[in-house]
Each structure stands twice: as C-alpha cells, then as structure tokens.
C-alpha cells in the first residue's frame, strides 16, 4: 500500500539522533515547517552508544585544538540550556606511574590555548578529592568535564522541536530519496509499524543519519567516504567515581571512566569495521579484556565492581574529500552542500562531529538550510533553555518541592530525569507512586507520562525515556510491570508478549559478553521468571 502526502515541508530531517534532533529544533525555532524521520527510535545510533561524557575539550587539546575549543564552548552552553541532562562532576586527568609527567605541562598549555580552565592538583589532594583514583598517581589536573545523558538531551531537543511545530516520525525508514532532475524533492519511507510505504516532500532534505548517512546519500546517488570505527564500553553496576577520570596522555584505549546517573562506564576501544557490519555491533572478549585491564589502572576498585553490560557504538568518521584512502580523518564537523559538491540541490549532509558539538552542527546545518530558503533568522538554540531546563527564577526548587509533598525516591529520580517537566508526572496517589523499576526509581506515574508524552512505541523506547530496566536487575522485575502498563495503553496483548521477549533479548545481548559471577546469577534468575514461570520463549518474536 502506498500513501502520498501532498503537504510539502520546508525541510525533512533524516535521522533521530542528537544531531537530527538539534537540527529539527533549530529549524523549527526559526519558523520552518519540519518533519523528522527515524527508522527505529530516537538516540538509537551513535548518540546512545557512547560515554555520555560532557567533554571539556581537554582530551583533544593537544591533538586537535579546533575540536577542543568547540567542545569547551558547547560544554558551557549545555550547562546553561540543558541543565537537567548534565551533571557538573568535573574531571581529573591523572598521570600514572607508567605515564610521562612531562606531558602534563604540554597538556595544560594546550588547554589554556583552547580556553579550557585547568588546575594542577597535588596527588595527595587528588586522592582526597576522588578516593577511587589509582593511589599511585604522580599528577592530576582538574578540568571542567562532566556527564551528559544523551537520551535525555535528544528527547529534550525533540520536545522543543515539537513545541515549535515540528512533526516527528519514528519507525520510518528511508528507502529512497526522491529526485527530480538535479533536485531532491522528497523521501520514500517504510513505516515499520504499519508495514506500508509512504512518501513525504520538502524543499530541503537534511541527511543527519550519522554513519548511516553514507547509505542515505547513496540513495540520492551520492558518495560520502565514511570510515566506521567501533568503540566498546563497559557499564558498571554502580558509581565508583564522582569525577570523570582520564589519563593524562595522548588519547588511547579505555582511558576514560565517566560517572553517569546511577552507574559508571569505562571506554573505549577503537577498531575499524567494514561498513556492512555497522548494524551488527558486538563486543568481543578481547574488547572486554582490554577495557578491564586498562580501567583498573585508572580506578583499582573496578576490579571488584560488578559489570552490568557491554556495548559498542560506531563513530561516524568522514574522510576528507581529497583523501579517499581515509588516512586523514577528522573528528570535526562535516557539513556537505551537495549542490556545490555533487550538483544535487535540495540535499545536504551534516555528519562527523561528536555528541558535544551536536548543537553547533545543527546550527551550521540550519544556517545553510535558511540560506537556501532565503530565511533570515538568527539561531537562538544557544540562549534558549531546553524543555525541562527552564529557569524561571531562583524559586525553581521551591516550586517543584511544593508539588512534591515528600521527596520519595521515585519523585527525586523523576526530577533528575525530566527536570522541570517532572511536574507533569502524576504523584500523590499510591498507585501512581508505586515503583515499576525499583533499581532506578521509575514510578507508574512516570511510565504513564512517558507513554503519553514522549513518543514511546515499545518497551525499549520506554527504557530510553525513563531508565526502566537499566538498573542492576536489567529488567528482571520491571519488564513485566512495564509491559502491563504499555499493554493497557498501546498494545494488543499478543504484540506485548513479543515486545517483552524483544526487550529481554536486548538486555541479554548487552550482558552476554560479561556474563559471569553475579551477572550470570541474575540472568539465570530472570530466565526462571520469564521462561519458567511466564512461559515466554526466546523465539517468541
């Protein structure tokens, strides 16, 4: 069945990662009519598969000064506009016995040039500031690193885009870019929910597909030279460190330990993978080994901390156009105007960059869109706070506290996750306050809010919005409760059973590379419950 939409948008954005979200927000704020399309769910690609590190830029100060100064600027901007997605933890760059202390002064100088504030700490003081750090450190530099929750950041951008009139479609995969003469005029999509094809038209099409942008461009007959690089990370069961820990040396494997929400994570590895493998990411035993071996050097207590999951993401690295071999790869922002580059008008690609610079990427892409549409409006995304981070006045805390009679675990967690939007979550009645996810403190009220307001189609989407199933039990107790709630409002019972099986399968995927000790105990227990008691089968879907 084919469906054609006569409405023509100003701009169609392909890709529901943070770059797409940011671009949709920026375009919508500048008064354009926007449609964003995503094949799975928001933040499913590289956006949701990284450290969640609010880079100060210090990591790139020595090797890539341009990225470093972009990072620190965006770092300060995100603290302002996305306050509820950011944790201002600060970071340490530590010099370990096997590292060269001479690098420290070079590092501090480079940070100064990039505009990154540094403070050299006495090792003894560093140990007191961050007790989890390797006690044998020789030196430490404090930098304004932090943590950022990429799911929250993406969702918040999406919500603001929607507030400004943008339309959002998830589960819509681009199957073709419709071109007329030398102009891209629309996209053909496959709606996975309804199993039907549908076409949408726009004046400009923005390819914000990250690493998948390579494929999307090829649908328009354009070649972009992408080099997928796999990075693996390990999630630990709880927070070991309060500050971000980095090695004070040139970037290498497994040298960043980031505390994020209830957990902390060590990463990453870096490995080139063939393009046809980008949808097939797995973490190998060798990856796990190197992450543990190196991680323990940063913080020895990692050796005795339970590992929750392992996962891998793909960096969208782009080779410079004049270098088809891919040796000269930049991590900087790549904005391609395909009219100039390939003679195809109405089509642009925004890629490269990193989570930290998503807003800047969106701004540059939107500037180009506006130029093409002859819209003269300034970018405001760096000034206006995202939904959830609005600061009305100093009484913000008082105002929310009034809504919350007592700060129960669920209410406090919800405030951490949704910022000021938490006021939309029903509280007070004992049913709404009951916990769905006990590890992360997600209440029935919060799940209902997410289903109603945050574009949730299935349990996995719900996890990205609320952290349901992200705690130590990995869905053991919460999956069936959440499935029940989802079933009440969205799904047919048969569908819900498949969804539950999918959700648990996805949890197991992350646990299988590190399935030993308590993790395997927990998995076994989960399988008793779901397979043994509820009769759910792994091949249910």
């Amino acid at each position, binding site marked *: 069945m084919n469906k054609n939409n006569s409405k023509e948008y100003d701009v169609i954005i392909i890709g529901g990662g943070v770059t797409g979200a940011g671009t949709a927000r920026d375009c919508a704020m500048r008064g354009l009519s926007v449609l964003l399309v995503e094949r799975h769910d928001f933040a499913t690609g590289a956006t949701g598969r990284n450290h969640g590190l609010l880079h100060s830029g210090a990591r790139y100060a020595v090797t890539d000064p341009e990225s470093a100064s972009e990072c620190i600027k965006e770092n300060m901007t995100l603290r302002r506009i996305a306050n509820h997605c950011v944790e201002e933890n600060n970071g340490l760059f530590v010099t370990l016995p096997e590292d060269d202390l001479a690098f420290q002064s070079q590092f501090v100088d480079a940070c100064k040039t990039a505009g990154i504030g540094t403070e050299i700490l006495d090792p003894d003081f560093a140990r007191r500031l961050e007790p989890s750090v390797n006690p044998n450190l020789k030196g430490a530099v404090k930098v304004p690193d932090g943590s950022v929750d990429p799911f929250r950041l993406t969702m918040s951008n999406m919500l603001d885009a929607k507030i400004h009139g943008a339309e959002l479609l998830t589960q819509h995969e681009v199957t073709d870019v419709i071109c007329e003469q030398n102009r891209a005029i629309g996209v053909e999509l496959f709606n996975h929910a309804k199993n039907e094809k549908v076409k949408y038209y726009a004046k400009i099409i923005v390819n914000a597909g990250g690493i998948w942008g390579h494929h999307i461009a090829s649908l328009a007959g354009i070649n972009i030279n992408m080099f997928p690089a796999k990075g693996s990370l390990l999630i630990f*069961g*709880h*927070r070991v460190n309060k500050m971000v820990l980095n090695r004070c040396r040139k970037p290498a494997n497994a040298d960043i330990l980031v*505390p994020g*929400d*209830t957990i902390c994570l060590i990463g990453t590895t870096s490995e080139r993978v063939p393009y046809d493998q980008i949808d097939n990411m797995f973490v190998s035993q060798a990856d796990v080994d190197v992450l543990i071996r190196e991680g323990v050097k940063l913080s020895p207590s990692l*050796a*005795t*901390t*339970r*590992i929750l999951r392992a996962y891998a993401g793909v960096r969208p690295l782009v080779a410079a156009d004049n270098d088809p071999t891919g040796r000269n790869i930049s991590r900087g922002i790549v904005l391609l105007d395909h009219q100039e580059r390939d003679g195809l008008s109405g089509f642009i690609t925004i890629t490269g960059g990193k989570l930290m610079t998503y807003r800047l990427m969106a701004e540059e892409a939107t500037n180009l869109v506006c130029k093409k549409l002859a819209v003269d409006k300034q970018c405001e995304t760096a000034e206006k706070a995202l939904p959830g981070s609005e600061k009305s006045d100093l009484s913000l805390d008082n105002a929310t506290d009034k809504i919350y009679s007592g*700060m*129960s*675990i669920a209410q*406090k*967690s919800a405030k*951490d996750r949704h910022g000021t939007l938490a006021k939309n979550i029903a509280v007070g009645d004992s049913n709404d306050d009951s*916990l769905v996810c*006990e*590890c992360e*403190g997600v209440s029935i009220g919060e799940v209902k809010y997410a289903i109603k307001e945050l574009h949730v189609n299935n349990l996995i989407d719900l996890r990205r919005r609320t952290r349901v199933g992200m*705690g*130590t*039990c990995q869905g*053991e*107790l919460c999956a069936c409760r959440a499935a029940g709630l989802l079933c009440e409002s969205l799904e047919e019972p048969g569908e819900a059973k498949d969804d539950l099986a999918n959700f648990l399968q996805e949890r197991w995927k992350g646990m299988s590379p590190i399935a030993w*000790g*308590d993790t395997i*105990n*927990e998995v076994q*227990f989960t399988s008793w419950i779901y397979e043994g008691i509820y009769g759910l089968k792994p091949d249910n879907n």
Partner: protein
Amino acid sequence: MKKEIFEPFNVSDNNFEQCVKCTICTVYCPVLEVNPDYPGPKQSGPDGERLRLKDASFYDEALKLCLNCKRCEVACPHGVKIGDIIQLARIKYSKKKPKVRDMILANTDIVGTMASTFAPIVNPIVALKPVRRIMDSVLKIDHHRIFPKYAGLRFESWYRRYAEKKQNDFKKHVSYFHGCYVNYNFPQLGKDLIKIMNACGYGVHLLEKEKCCGVALISNGLIKQATKQALHNVEAFKKSIVDKNMPVISTSSTCIFTIRDEYPHLLGIKNDEIRDESELATRFLYRLIDSGKLKLVFKKNYKKRIAYHTPCHMEKLGWSIYSTSLLRMIPGVDFMALESLCCGIAGTYGFKKENYETSQGVGKPLFEQIESSKADFVATDCETCKWQIEMSTSLKVQHPISILAEALDVEATMKLWNA
C-alpha cells in the same frame, strides 16, 4: 612455582552488588508489614545504596524505621548485609542530630549509674502515670512504656562484695560480660550465671572495667561515643582472652552480637582476636556438654511448660539452638518453640513515641501466639524482648540461664565437677 591465590571477584562492600533483587528480604521484614512508610530492606539497602552513591540526597529519613532486626540478612540467599547497609547509611547520611531523648535512651551506662544510685526514688517516679505522660509529651517516650526497674545494689558492687573472693578457688575460669541490664536492672541473672558456672567448676571473673556494648548508641547515631566504648571493650576482651586465656561469656544476645558483628561491620573495629572466644553462656555450656566435658544434674521436682521466643539477634547469630537444647535437657520441662518472629521492641526503638504503633504492630502475631501457648512463662535470651513481652502479654519472661539455675541440682552437679 608461585602459588596462585584466588580472591573473590566482584565482591563489593557489604556484598551490596550481590543482590539479585529476589525480594525475599522484603517478605521477611517485620516493619514493612505494619508500616507502609518504610521502603523495605531491598529498597533501603542495596537499591537505595546505588542511588545514594549517585547523590547523597537520596537518603531517606524513613530508614530510621528499620528495627535493625537483621531478619533480612538471615533471609538473603546471597549473603548481602542488608541491615548493615541500612545502618551505615543512617550513620553516614542522616543529618538529623540525636535528640535529648535519644541520648537518654542510648546512654544505658550513665543513666543506669545515676538511676540505680537513686533506685528507691527513681523506680516509683518513672512508673507514675503523670510522669509517663510528661515523658511522653516532652521527651516523646511513649507513655505506654514502663521503664525497667533499677536495682538498688548494682551487680558489679554485689560481685565485689559477695562473690569475687571465692572465684579463685576454681580450676577453670571464664570472664563474664554482664552488660547494662544485669548491672543496673536485674543483677539476679548475673547471680544465677555465677551459681551455674561455679557448680560446673568454673570461676567467674569480671572484665577490666567493662563498658556498655554501645548497641543503643549505634542505633541512635552516637557513633563517636560508640566507637570509643567499643575500642575500650575490645581491649578489655583481649586482656581476658589473649593474655589470660579466659573466654568471655555473656547472658545478653544483643550485647554479644554487637561485639562480635556490629563492631567490625558498622564501626570498622577489628575484633578477629577475640571474636571466636566471645559467646553466649548457653552456647558455652552446651558445647561443653556436647563434647562430653560437662554434665548437669537437675532437680527431680521441677515441672514447667516453657515457650521459647527467638530474639532477632539470636536468629542472626544462629544460636537459639544452644539455649533451647539446654532447656530441653531439664527433665520436667514441657518445651514449645514459638515461631521465630520479631517482638517489635528492638532496644530503644519501641520506647520512642513515633514508633510505638509500629512496634506493637510488629509484635502482635507473637503476642497472640504467646497468649494461646498455655505456657507457665516465656523464655528468651534478650532483655528488651522480655520487657516487650511482659508489657504486651499476660505472661512473665525468664532467661534460660535463670531457668537452668532454678532447675539445677547445684550440690549434685558440684560434686561431679569440683572434685
């Protein structure tokens, strides 16, 4: 070749990461059943600890509702020290300062010294209804509670005056940690113990200036003082156990539990050198009998029906079997074990006005069992359980040691072991 050492992998403090969220602890929590304001052991313990590591403001004052009965730890199949996690969180995060009332209740030592000195005046006064009303409204000590009577002559003074000299006549020796209750409120229990031990051929000695074990200080958040007293006690125990080769026995399950387990777990005080030789008198006696080194001779005419109540800390120690086995040895005893349930008092917990209802709610199933037991009296190893059961039921409570002392044929036993 170098010997490989296998260290346990991925074991965190108090095993909190070993929790697999099976929720068995929550089923066994006596508080949760009667007070829904309490988040329960799993949520307060391992789940809450993760959140508190993220942000200390996740600490919830509702953790004060925990009785510290440790029944969650007994239930846990993975050895998670749930109770310890909760206690440590209270110590680490609670911002509420202990109230005057808490200091009075917690300082069993100082209050006991003063009260027993003026026992003839104090006892009738604190028993007066108007006084209890005033304590209720001013100090928030519930008016239903009756303070245990203070003895005019402290156990320590009695010992020095009447018992000390004889103790050196024996061949074998033990030290006795009597605790505050025996010293200030109920010296008779201490006297009963000496009677039995002497009959078995053991001289009983006191430690060098024993201090209160500190359990009430810990639960009321007075950690500095608790630590000071604990360090003192560990030293005193060492002098007896290590220097003089004299094991330390006690008649209070809570005191001995605190010294063995709470000192290292909650106060971080090492007690490896003394832990194995610090035990309950009933365990000490039973093990002697069991290994053939001792035999008790009982009176022929002792006839009682006794219902044994397992205090929470006995459950945690796993030692109620020693007390009950000794009681079963008495020929005239018709023994019944009550179901192991918390009585609800939890030391000073039940004395607090805000906890009264919870406390009585927790104890209710136990009280009902006791009322229908048709026993002559209840036996238990814990003094605070005794107050609670005597206040809440029609039966009196006796310590197993006192029962043994009454049923023992002292002369016949003495003949066997003091030849």
